[in-house]
């Protein structure tokens, strides 16, 4: 006999505190951890600083994917836009000699424009169709860059200079951490605003939202474009961190990872992608010691979390606080 689900509805009503208060409740500890805690504890370990820098940049990209989740789309294309951003920064800094600080916003902008143009028609699709189309997009972009190389263009870009003004791993880390905090604040603000409300209503029921006069096409494109912008920035910063970019730098696996990080943290919370990214990246590094079974344990770990916490790590808070 089927059970009728009597548990409380999925959408959590925000407690009746002021918006700024709720924001600071999460933002302040996060900022303290990233800007004070990490430098304090990891200051002398460039390797771990590098790991956390990676995590910050990946989180930034995952925040973008979270935004597309908030309009009810599964986006497996972030790798493509990270690649576009990476190549943009790579080519602008090497071939044109532009400064990183100019190239990075341009990379984000370029990725955003492409995202808008491609996304506008694609966003009509939903569910697994959208997921698979975005998966194809990741592969298509990778193949484009691979073939540009064959036709005589730059197949891969190496010797990308480090950004001017950034001299040490700590400097790059602080840049990445600040970038992440700005991204988090921005997405949080967006999510709290009227636009965020529109997004939520669209996720619940897109036809209904359209029927009350919301221009769903425009709002969908807005979310997707911002997502691609963030992907481009993340990829561009990464290119500068690694000092190279190749067609295989971002594959389908990377796009899936961006998606996984959001899921793992919890799709109901803006903090989710950040928690998910950090958890998985750090877990992966810790497992390195057992190289042989690293990937196997990684897979097992993911399944274990999914089984016991199918709504992500952050749902732990709700579960522990609430029902039996």
């Amino acid at each position, binding site marked *: 006999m*089927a059970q009728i689900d009597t548990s409380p509805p*999925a959408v959590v009503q925000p407690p009746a505190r002021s918006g700024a208060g709720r924001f600071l409740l999460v933002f302040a500890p996060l900022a303290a951890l990233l800007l004070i805690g990490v430098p304090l504890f990891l200051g002398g370990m460039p390797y771990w600083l590098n790991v956390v820098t990676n995590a910050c940049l990946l989180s930034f990209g995952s925040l973008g994917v979270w935004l597309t*989740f908030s309009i009810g789309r*599964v986006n497996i294309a972030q790798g493509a836009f990270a690649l576009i951003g990476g190549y943009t920064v790579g080519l602008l800094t090497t071939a044109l000699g532009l400064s990183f600080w100019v190239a990075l916003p341009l990379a984000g902008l370029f990725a955003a424009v492409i995202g808008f143009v*491609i996304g506008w*028609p*694609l966003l*009509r*699709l*939903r*569910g*697994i*169709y959208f*997921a*698979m*189309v975005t*998966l*194809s*997009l990741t*592969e*298509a972009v990778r*193949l*484009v860059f*691979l*073939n540009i190389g*064959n036709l005589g263009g730059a197949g891969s870009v190496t010797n990308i200079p480090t950004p001017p003004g950034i001299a040490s791993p700590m400097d790059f880390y602080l840049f990445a951490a600040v970038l992440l905090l700005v991204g988090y604040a921005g997405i949080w603000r967006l999510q709290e605003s009227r636009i965020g409300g529109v997004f939520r209503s669209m996720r619940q029921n897109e036809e209904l939202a359209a029927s009350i006069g919301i221009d769903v096409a425009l709002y969908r494109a807005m979310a997707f474009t911002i997502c691609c912008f963030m992907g481009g920035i993340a990829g561009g910063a990464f290119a500068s961190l690694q000092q190279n970019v190749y067609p295989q730098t971002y594959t*389908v*696996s990377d796009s*899936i990872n961006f*998606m*996984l990080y959001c*899921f*793992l943290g919890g*799709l*109901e919370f803006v903090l989710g992608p950040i928690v998910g990214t950090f958890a998985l990246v750090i877990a992966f590094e810790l497992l390195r010691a057992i190289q*042989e*079974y690293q*990937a*196997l344990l*990684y*897979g*097992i770990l*993911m*399944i274990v979390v*999914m*089984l016991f916490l*199918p*709504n992500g790590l952050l749902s732990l808070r709700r579960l522990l606080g609430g029902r039996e």
Partner: protein
Amino acid sequence: MEQILVNGAILAANYALIALGITLIFSIMNVLNFAHGQMFMFGGLIVYWTVAQLGLPYAVGLAMAAVAVGLIGMAFEVFFFRRVMRDSTREENTMLLAVGTALLLENAALSLFGEKQRGIPPIVTGVYRIGDAFLPANRALVFGISLVLIVAILLFVTYSKTGRAMRALAQDRTATLLMGVDTARISTLGFGLGAALAGIAGGLLITVSGVNAGIGTAISTKAFIMIMIGGAGVVSGALLGAVALGFIEAFGYAYLPGSLTYLMIFVALILFLLIRPQGIMGKPWG
């Protein structure tokens, strides 16, 4: 030209088994089996192990692959998917679980079988000529077995009681439940059958081109392309997608430089989906 047509046909038959399997799972459970490619790979490696290591006949190996991978599929459904589908608030969570199972299978295979490319000698040797084209006897046999299996599955799904229950479940879960069908058992069987098909496909293909622990993602991507072309959740769509992909690949490799073939496939696919999002035969989403 004949060679291209022959290539297209045999590719289509190989791919059809893969497409059928993933379609079965999707139509019954609404889950996109990200681990499908890994199940294919597992099937191939099990055949390798039974034939090359244990020395058993090929038919035994193939049967073992089908059973083993089918059991894995059923275990996934019972222990993983059923639980998550019940407890999670968003349906995308099952997609995450599917990705997790893919990672799990891939790395289990790596630990159990190692990373080397594995292959077994052809079941039958010799090459047939069809006009200008070469058709290795082994490939012809694989083609034949695939066709027989496809027909068998179609008959099963159309006429047998369990098969009809699966189709009913795919059409309308609640109605099927109200009819008194044990949906849990059917779901498990469906997942197991879909998985077994992937395993058999892998077991057949290892005689033709060999298998290694890393091909999972590539096969899954092909499976996705096929159901995108043909339409997810519909058997005729799966077959259509397989035929389309097989012939596009055959023609593409003959006339275009290597990677352009797939670039064109993806671009064409994206454009095609904009016009007709549900594929050629698929049910529209939502």
